[in-house]
């Protein structure tokens, strides 16, 4: 089993931290995991479109190549979809998870698309639009790739206690509220 995922966000939204937490949760479940940032465009500037990646596997991961054909794509900020082809390389049968309150039409019908109001949840729980932890909660629900308990553990070990608790609330809300393809 090797699952590869790509995260689209803007600099400052915590896309790399999201990849790291997903890897951390998978590792806590006894899997091998790797997370890494996108290279290019002069680095991660606040607001610029960025990408982060993660691999999860049953066996040690030797690959250090870029992920060209992910199994999963997560979009933190749907406004990016106007300038970045978030579907590029997504495997047929793959999963697209978008932070959106409303369904967004995408140009492929050979994938499964899910939506979660992660931005809204982040404002409610954290008071600011950092939706990476909410999206991990949604990811846990739709894929089972990482369990909700280990996600909460990964969040707990990433942040100071008070911030961690707020993020865990975001994880749980998103876990409940994610919708889309059945």
């Amino acid at each position, binding site marked *: 089993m090797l699952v590869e995922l790509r995260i689209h966000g803007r600099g400052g939204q915590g896309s790399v931290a999201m990849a790291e937490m997903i890897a951390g949760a998978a*590792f806590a479940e006894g899997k091998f*995991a*790797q997370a890494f940032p996108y*290279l290019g465009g002069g680095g991660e500037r606040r607001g610029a479109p960025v990408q982060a990646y993660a691999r999860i596997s049953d066996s040690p991961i030797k*690959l*250090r190549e870029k992920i*060209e054909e992910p199994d999963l794509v997560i979009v933190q900020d749907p406004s990016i979809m106007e300038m970045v082809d978030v579907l590029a390389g997504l495997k047929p049968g793959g999963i697209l998870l978008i932070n959106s309150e409303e369904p967004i039409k995408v140009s492929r019908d050979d994938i499964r698309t899910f939506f979660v109001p992660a931005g809204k949840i982040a404002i409610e729980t954290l008071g600011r639009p950092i939706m990476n932890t909410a999206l991990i909660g949604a990811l846990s629900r739709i894929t089972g790739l990482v369990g909700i308990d280990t996600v909460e553990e990964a969040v707990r070990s990433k942040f100071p206690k008070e911030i961690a608790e707020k993020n865990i609330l975001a994880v749980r809300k998103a876990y409940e509220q994610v919708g889309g393809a059945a």
Partner: protein
Amino acid sequence: MKGKTAILEGSRAVAEAVRACRPDVISVYPITPQTHILEDLARFVSSGQLKSQFVRADSEFSAASIVYGASAAGARAYTASASQGLLLMNEVIYAMASTRLPVVLTAVNRAISAPITIQPDHQDTMSLRDTGALQIHVESLQEAYDAHVQSFRIAEDPEVLLPIFICMDGWVLSHSYEPVTVFPDEAISEFAGTFQPVQKLDPAKPLTYGSYADQDVLMEYRYALMLAQEKAREKIRSVTKEYKEVFGHFDGDLIDTHRTEDAEIILVAMGSMVSTIRAAVDELRAEGRKVGLVKVRTFRPFPEEEIIKACGKAPLIAVLDKSLSVNTGGILATEIKAAFYGNPVQPVIVPFMAGLGGKEVNRRVIKEIVDIACRAGDKQGPRGDTIWMGLDHGFFS
């Protein structure tokens, strides 16, 4: 020994190792993609977890000069840099090697301007290959951790006394997260020991570093570096062996090999792409292709004998380079060709430029390299030109 395994960032793995080795003096100037190491170490010092003197500098030239002075005064000294920062240190590194100051330096490999970029390749450390400093190239975060622990012992050995670069590819290693086993600080500190200088700056017993010399001894000073690097060979072997005995990890000494037995073509490479090559070799082997891998771990000292032995009777060698000597070709390939000169077995050596400027080297590219090398081996002969993977010829029209 049992350690604690967790998902760590590459920079953090380096900082964990450096902290446990307890340098007396740290001076680092920030530069992408090295800065996370600096930030982690600064946090360790400010929280009291590391009792080093953390000296802020106004440039990489100053940072190198500060650790030069610290090392001359008998302190265990550490610095780190990348790309242009390493070039700015160049003058000081030559002096450091010739005055035999065993500073440990993390080189987070990044391409050189212009155009300005943050992409990873090996041009920065290759530009410093003749300084006299030792160079170890790592392929994983675990190896980055392990190599840093080993580096202080190797550099500070009284028979070696040379600066050492631990080279790790920017981003691909420095900014990636993967499981790393970290051992207790006390165990690492014990392994790393303390720096016992054979001489040091001391007001009570004044001496001079970097004094004037003429043709009577200058060449001798350069030759002394040759001898020290020979001693470093033995030291690298013994320290990596001892590390394996204590901590159970072995990433290779001067080289590492993967499935070279009965190989008909051997790929030679350094750094993070070695990991992906391992995966590609396994896939090609599963298809019945007799492919092997030699990882060059120490570029200085250069492991000629080990490489020749590992390549055995393989008739074909493909060298993957991430640095360029303009008008000559890949620097690693040039050294591999020189190593085989006069050897009874004369394989066809096909040089590839693969990964320069961050150009992608994935399994597809690696398999293409194997196919091209196999064709070149039939007709091209050993004087073949460098093959530039992924070169956009349209750029020049």
